[in-house]
């Protein structure tokens, strides 16, 4: 039994933490989120120079060859440091889709720019009609000779306004909610028939509503359903680690504030009710850490259902835990906690956005129950049930 990180992992994490501390003070962050593109092009370029974007790609793909543990350690620092650079959109969502699905030729065309920060790509997967169902897809792809044509609408395409290209999940065959018959297609942002409406996103960053009206597209690899599910699971785990970083920051800042802020002649932290509230926050942070460790361990399980259960359980737990920590951090800060001027409110928004991304607690509990029932069925435990 071993829960410790390697020295290399610890160094990596510490060095990224220091990088963010230098590049990303709270005042820098506040300016960045007010810009139209919603991230710092300078920081993004520096990250490219330092190869942070290349971290989870294999050596063969030109990356640093690290695994999901290192990726999640990075995410934790993103959350702690309120980093709004488009790492998840480019590196996790688009990058891992390409890495898992694309041909060698496509990879060599797309990944180098993605890794050095010069090219941005967004994955367009979500559609409002499907709520959180990963593979619900009305957007259609039809083949005409060598080329594909896309038609449909994608929502909440993260970082879309900054993207040079889009990866679009589209349906080639089958019913709207079927698991098979899906492909991933590459299009240029300026291609004919593409229209994009930009939005800011809660918690920082930007996104877009993408309308596709007979857009010519290039297909990446083959059947895409499992890859999309796996990439969304990795992105969910990544966002959990990000949330864990933010929760730690909120707890530390709240405990600190409670020691200095006085009311009725006593520091807030001397009131038993507030002490217990912070203990409850502390316990939730500890339990969340356990869930992150659990995901780190299980994401390398050879059983796909075990990986999915791990991610679903982690998000289900942390959605609730993160709401509690965020809400209580605001409550304990009082008035100053509901302003833009203090970082507390920004962590609150980041954690609120976390809850709704890629499926909320209810969605994940249902996934978990379905996966568990399938397993029990396979084990013959449901023999008598109907």
């Amino acid at each position, binding site marked *: 039994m071993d829960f410790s990180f390697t020295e290399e992992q610890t160094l990596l994490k510490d060095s990224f933490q220091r990088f963010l501390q230098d590049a990303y003070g709270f005042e820098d962050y506040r300016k960045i989120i007010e810009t139209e593109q919603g991230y710092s092009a300078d920081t993004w370029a520096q990250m490219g120079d330092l190869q942070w974007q290349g971290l989870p790609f294999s050596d063969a793909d030109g990356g640093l060859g690290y695994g999901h543990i290192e990726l999640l350690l990075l995410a934790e620092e993103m959350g702690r440091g309120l980093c709004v650079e488009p790492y998840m959109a480019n590196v996790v969502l688009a990058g891992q889709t390409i890495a898992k699905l694309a041909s060698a030729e496509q990879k060599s065309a797309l990944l180098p720019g993605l890794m050095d920060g010069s090219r941005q790509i967004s994955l367009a997967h979500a559609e409002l009609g499907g709520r959180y169902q990963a593979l619900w897809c009305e957007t259609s792809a039809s083949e005409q000779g060598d080329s594909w044509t896309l038609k449909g609408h994608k929502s909440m395409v993260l970082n879309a306004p900054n993207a040079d290209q889009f990866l679009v999940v589209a349906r080639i065959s089958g019913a709207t909610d079927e698991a098979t018959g899906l492909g991933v297609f590459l299009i240029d942002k300026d291609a004919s028939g593409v229209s994009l409406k930009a939005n800011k996103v809660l918690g920082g960053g930007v996104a877009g509503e993408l309308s596709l009206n007979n857009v010519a597209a290039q297909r990446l690899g083959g059947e895409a359903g499992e890859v999309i599910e796996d990439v969304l699971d990795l992105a969910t785990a990544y966002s959990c680690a990000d949330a864990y970083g933010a929760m730690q920051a909120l707890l530390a800042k709240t405990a600190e504030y409670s020691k200095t802020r006085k009311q009725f002649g006593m520091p807030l932290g001397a009131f038993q009710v507030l002490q217990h509230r912070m203990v409850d926050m502390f316990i939730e942070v500890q339990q969340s850490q356990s869930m992150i460790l659990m995901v780190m361990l299980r994401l390398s399980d050879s059983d796909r259902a075990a990986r999915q259960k791990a991610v679903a359980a982690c998000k289900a737990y942390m959605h609730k835990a993160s709401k509690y920590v965020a809400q209580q951090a605001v409550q304990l800060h009082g008035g100053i906690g509901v302003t833009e001027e203090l970082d507390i409110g920004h962590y609150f*928004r980041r954690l609120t956005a976390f809850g709704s991304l890629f499926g*909320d607690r209810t969605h994940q509990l249902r996934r978990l129950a379905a996966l568990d029932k399938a397993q029990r069925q396979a084990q013959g435990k449901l023999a008598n049930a109907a």
Partner: protein
Amino acid sequence: MNLEFSAEEKAFQQEVREWLRANKPDFPPSLTHSREQTLAWEQTLASKGWLATGWPKQYGGTGWTATQRYIWDTECALANVPGVNPFGVSMCGPVIMAFGNDEQKAEHLPHIVNATRLWCQGYSEPGSGSDLASLKTRAERDGDDYIVNGQKIWTTSAHIADWIFCLVRTDASGRKQEGISFLLIDMKTPGIEVREIRSIDGAHHLNEVFFKDVRVPAKNLVGEEGKGWTIAKFLLGHERTTIAGVPLCQAQIEELKVLRDADPNLRNDPKVDEDIAALEVDLLALEYTNLRALERAESGKPPGPESSGLKIKGTELQQALAEYKVEMGAYASLPWQAEAIGEAAYAQATAAYNIGRASTIYGGTNEIQKNVLAKFALGL
């Protein structure tokens, strides 16, 4: 026991409903109305004589019974019209009626009841949040004036207000509750500076107000010097019957149901039905607790133990409703300060959830409310 409206009350309800339908403003309710919007809507109400719903007729109020006010509040929520800025009508006005002299009444009440002056409230200070009595803003007597120095914070609407009522310290020698006075200050007086505080929802509701050698005529002192704490307590106990926000919650539950029924993912999900039913059950309990408080007010009895939990349960429910709306919206709740995607109703859901966290903080945190209840309701 009886809760049926009388024939007169039913007729009143009908009249109110029709008037609201005909006179509803052309902008939707929001947390950040401009000065122009605020004045336009309040003057519409004032010209009908329906602005000061809690005031007696002698001061230009409606003279309504508690039941009529309940009907009015409910119809306003159902009609989805903007609320009335509370600082003049619900706070400063009643204080002047109860503690002000004739000159103050003549000077201020008409402007409030006609919505020709907007008010804000200068209570909180950077160092005194829940511990209001520790406030430090000084008012020193200088001839016929007070010279005011200090800072207020969390001042809602200070940027659109004409006047501010302040708690100030006129004597620092005794117990901290003593030596506090209640002062009315024209916001145009030299030495006052208003700075925006941007809220967690990205909007401008709140301000800091700085006072530097601000000269305030002594005739603007309400009540006796040093007796401001009595007035502050009077205001805290005031408006018990509307504090729970029941009509607003009712409108919000109805909105959740409409949103559910419009979305196949939600209307075919029994859990959503159950969740909304659970919120509705909490609201029903709150409504009846509120009605009990209203009945006591109506019959002139002092507030009973039922009223003490109204703020706690009301704000908790408001927060739960806001949180649930965010979760119903799923991806549609994620755009920020942006146009809606999907159902328009979700465009502001997250902002409302964010700023709604303040409801358990302002006006005495819920923790403070519980301290008070422990003492007065349970004798602990």
